[in-house]
């Protein structure tokens, strides 16, 4: 818990020092995202992803897929049906231009080693430590919140909800149940 508080304090300090863009309709829209995703898209709630600095194409894809229902979401689809495609596109561009902040979450060495071993299939697209995605449609996942990553894997591993990425679904399902949390913690612990 103490460790978690240190993480939060550091994230908070970052938010404090960062200036914020406040003018114009896209910024007005983006400000409303802060309530759940943190100031300037850097989340302090482990179940909510940081969204700043993710690749533009990736953001655009998921935002539009949630809106169309092509990608399952528990909550976001109900938000994005209220936005125009153009607004979503602009939001994706906006957040992609903010700095990506890896919130490094230390974990037990054994868990990290186990996670690393289980990520063999992930490497081609996400890079060895999640920080060097293969293309603009693949998110960075290093220093992303472990709890969020684990919950995303749960989505991919549940057949009865719609997820669009065949390869990702296939690989997520190949993970052993007991490796899911370790994989999430491995990426969460990576600074780069």
């Amino acid at each position: 818990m103490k460790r978690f508080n240190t993480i939060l304090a550091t994230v908070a300090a970052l938010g404090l020092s960062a200036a914020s863009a406040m003018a114009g309709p896209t910024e007005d829209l983006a400000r409303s995202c802060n309530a759940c995703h943190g100031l300037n898209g850097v989340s302090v709630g482990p179940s909510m992803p940081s969204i700043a600095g993710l690749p533009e194409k990736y953001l655009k894809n998921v935002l539009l897929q949630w809106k169309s229902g092509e990608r399952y979401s528990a909550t976001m689809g109900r938000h994005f049906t209220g936005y125009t495609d153009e607004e979503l596109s602009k939001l994706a561009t906006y957040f992609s231009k903010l700095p990506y902040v890896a919130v490094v979450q230390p974990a037990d060495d054994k868990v990290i080693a186990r996670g690393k071993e289980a990520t063999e299939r992930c490497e081609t697209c996400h890079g060895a430590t999640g920080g060097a995605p293969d293309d603009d449609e693949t998110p960075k996942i290093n220093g992303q919140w472990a709890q969020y990553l684990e919950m995303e894997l749960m989505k991919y591993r549940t057949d009865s909800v719609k997820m669009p990425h065949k390869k990702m679904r296939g690989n997520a399902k190949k993970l052993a149940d007991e490796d899911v949390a370790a994989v999430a913690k491995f990426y969460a612990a990576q600074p780069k």
Partner: protein
Amino acid sequence: MSFNRRDFIKTLASTSVVFPMVVRASPSAGKARVVVVGGGFGGATAAKYLKIADPGLDVTLVERNKQFVSCPLSNEVISGHGKYEGLLAGYEGLVKRGVRVIFDDALAVDPAGKAVKLKGGTTLGYDFLVLSPGIDFNFAAIEGYSEALANTTHPHAYKAGAQTLALKKQVESMKDGDVFLLSVPPGPFRCPPGPYERASQIASYFKHHGKSKCKILIADANDSFSKKGLFEQAWKMHYPGMIEWVAGASGGKVVKFDAKSNTASSDFNDFKGAVVNIIPPHHAGLIAMNTGLTNDKGWCTVDMLTMESTKQKDIFVVGDSTIHGDLPVYGAPKSAHMANTQAKVAVANILAKINGQPAPEPFFVNTCYSIAEKDWGFSVVHIYRAKDGKLVYDTKAGGISPVNLPDEAALKLQRKLESEYCIGWFKNIMADAFA
């Protein structure tokens, strides 16, 4: 230190470079004085975002309490699923941002003289006032109930704080087979799903503490409630036979209370409980009423698109004290998220006024999670936009979480995700207001 400090410093340095669109204050803007009364989700968010928008603004926040106690997630404290400490926030974050925080009681506003009078004797002049006083209770509406009872033997616990812990203690003292009676006031009240989440959380406490024969009786002044289908599904699945809801039309509206016999009565029924939790009817915070900002029902009316009071110029009212719009059932819901989004719209409008710009197009969003049982959460989403000069609820978007999903795995996934998102939402919205 497990962090790579250098990385953070590097990020900080780059941060200042990539924000070219910060509003630059005009020379006069730096001198504008904005007073914010009430440091809850609405007021704290407004104070913070005023400073973010224009660090040169003279922003003063007046708040009664040195420590904020969140109502969201306070039901989870009553049940023991959450910790009281987790509800707390201080005002140091706002001070660091350059907000002048005064711990005092704002007594009265003089809209003509544009000043706020504080109990401690100070008078604060303002160019713009953000009023976020929350709600106060109309104890007189329930004969026999009173503020004195609420503070001693019969906490309402509908403003989080000492009463939250007092109610928790009472619930814990209940014996298997006892009845918990919850009286819900007529709408509008803050946190529309709050009473029903409370019933769920207390049922969860009973279920997991060997008190499964306990009953929860909800005596409701209303004929329906927020997320009804979702709550009823959860009750049936997790607490079969434990929770009974009596609608207003069936005599659920409590008008009288006898503390000695722990009996709450409507015009038709007498309800008894080992613990009786009466949530009294609300109205806008007293300072708003005393300033003449309220309608005949006791709520602040605002310009739907700007949050400026319809009664007084240059006073923006945000949060639970407002009737925001003429949307069904009672305008926009009274939630932390709504207060957050309203505060941001008010700030954008104040900035536009200071800088002589036209009012920006508003965007309002509400997200409200409830947790009915461990790993069982759900939400309602509202999106409001401006259309032809009016605030319109986008009926194509938003709505409640799906009640039915393709199979059990999908249902469990959905409820699990939203129970966790609830906690993540809470941490971020607290930070968005106070950090």
